């Protein structure tokens, strides 16, 4: 479609204005966002006013950004704003419009069924949603999108990327073909689920013991995986496959460790059991065990490349961290300090440091952010997400009365 000259000029002006105001250069194929609403129009709407306030606070929490909280407080108190005040909000106004646009786009993109499938990714999510009236879980997730966009613009991208990754992996024809080939392979070699079936006790009420037994077996069998892979690689990489495989066979034959047919058969059985786990008809076992296998493999690779300390060191570190008194007491001390004078609390490399500082709110945000990070490091899935969201809310609630 050919655009009229007037429209082209208008689009160009809009793009230039956007780029100049936000300092962000758009890609040539990227659509220029619509002109944002005026400040007064945004602030008339109570929901948008809360969102805008959140955005200003978040931008202010970044030390590189100019402080506009004071100007926002003047606006809330209906005091006259200076041209400088208004200038401070100009970029924020654009940013607000962009983030609202992101939230709306994601809300429109996801169906209720999509949200429902998201809940299947973790039983903990289902449990929480189960405490709410039917349909309410999806509703609160949708309603939270704009606020999350204001708190952390990257979050929405992370969410949609994760959603798309799962969707793509499940829909990928290559993935399905691979699954079918694996099925054919294990059938051809006579591998059956009897290994698992023997480990599953029908009287096990939760299935937890059965699962642990199956997982243990897989972990043992996984030990030989990389070794087999190396052998296989020597037979796979060249067009002279037969010669290479014969060489590999010779190596195996002459190796004290693996020098007989029985070892090869055992190896085939071990590899087969792992492949079986990836296609097992027992959904729960398949999911739990493949998670174990994938995580275990990742940990081994990381350990091999030196990016992960030994498991014992990691465990010892976690134990020490848990024993450290970092949160409840320090939070109380920090609050006491703030209330008693212009004192700040901070952590340096060698311990706690006290100093004077004016911008208490920024320090408080920093404190909570730091705590949040530590909580994430210490706890896994369910609690990490939960504490992270609570911290974000506690930060979001700082001196709200003063700002609105």
């Amino acid at each position: 479609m050919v655009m009229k000259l007037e429209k082209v000029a208008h689009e160009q002006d809009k793009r230039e204005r956007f780029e100049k105001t936000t300092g962000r250069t758009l890609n040539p194929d990227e659509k220029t966002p619509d002109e944002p609403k005026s400040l007064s129009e945004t602030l008339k709407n109570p929901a948008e006013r809360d969102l805008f306030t959140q955005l200003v606070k978040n931008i202010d929490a970044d030390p590189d950004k100019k402080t506009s909280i004071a100007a926002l407080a003047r606006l809330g108190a209906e005091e006259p704003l200076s041209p400088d005040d208004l200038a401070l909000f100009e970029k924020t106004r654009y940013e607000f419009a962009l983030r609202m646009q992101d939230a709306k786009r994601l809300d429109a993109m996801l169906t209720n069924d999509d949200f429902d499938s998201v809940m299947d990714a973790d039983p903990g999510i289902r449990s929480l949603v189960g405490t709410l009236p039917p349909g309410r879980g999806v509703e609160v997730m949708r309603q939270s999108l704009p606020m999350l966009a204001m708190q952390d613009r990257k979050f929405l991208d992370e969410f949609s990327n994760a959603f798309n990754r799962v969707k793509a992996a499940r829909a990928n024809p290559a993935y399905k073909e691979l699954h079918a080939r694996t099925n054919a392979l294990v059938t051809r070699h006579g591998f059956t689920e009897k290994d698992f079936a023997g480990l599953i006790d029908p009287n096990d009420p939760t299935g937890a013991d059965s699962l642990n037994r199956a997982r243990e077996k897989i972990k043992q069998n996984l030990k030989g995986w990389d070794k087999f892979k190396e052998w296989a690689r020597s037979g796979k990489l060249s067009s002279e496959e037969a010669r290479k495989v014969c060489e590999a066979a010779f190596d195996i034959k002459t190796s004290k460790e693996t020098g007989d047919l029985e070892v090869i058969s055992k190896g085939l059985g071990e590899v087969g059991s792992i492949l079986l786990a990836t296609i097992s008809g027992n959904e729960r076992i398949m999911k739990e065990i493949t998670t174990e296998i994938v995580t275990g493999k990742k940990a081994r690779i990381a350990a091999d490349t030196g990016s992960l300390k030994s498991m014992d060191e990691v465990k010892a570190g976690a134990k020490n961290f848990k024993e450290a008194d970092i949160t409840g007491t320090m939070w109380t001390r920090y609050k006491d300090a703030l209330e008693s004078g212009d004192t700040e609390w901070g952590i340096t490399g060698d311990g706690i440091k006290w100093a004077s500082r004016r911008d208490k709110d920024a320090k408080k945000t920093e404190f909570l952010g730091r705590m949040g990070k530590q909580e994430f490091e210490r706890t896994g899935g369910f609690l990490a997400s939960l504490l992270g969201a609570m911290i974000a809310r506690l930060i979001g609630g700082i001196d709200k009365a003063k700002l609105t």
Partner: protein
Amino acid sequence: MERDALEVLYNQLVDLVNEGKEKDANALILKRFPELPPQLQGEILLRMSTQALNNEADRLEGVARLQEEGEIIVQALDIVRQSLAK
């Protein structure tokens, strides 16, 4: 739930985590979840979902890699077995 009550709940959860009682922490939040502000409920669910989706994507991609590797290994081991049996 007021902000102060939220802070109390947060501190209770952190104490339980610090004491290694993660099951108790999970039980507490399940009990109190309906009392949380709707906005926070949604944020928690979305943050949990992001993490869970990434884990699931890692798993699916990892399984595909395993199956590819496994296919090669089984074929190679099978050839080796045949050559040894001769």
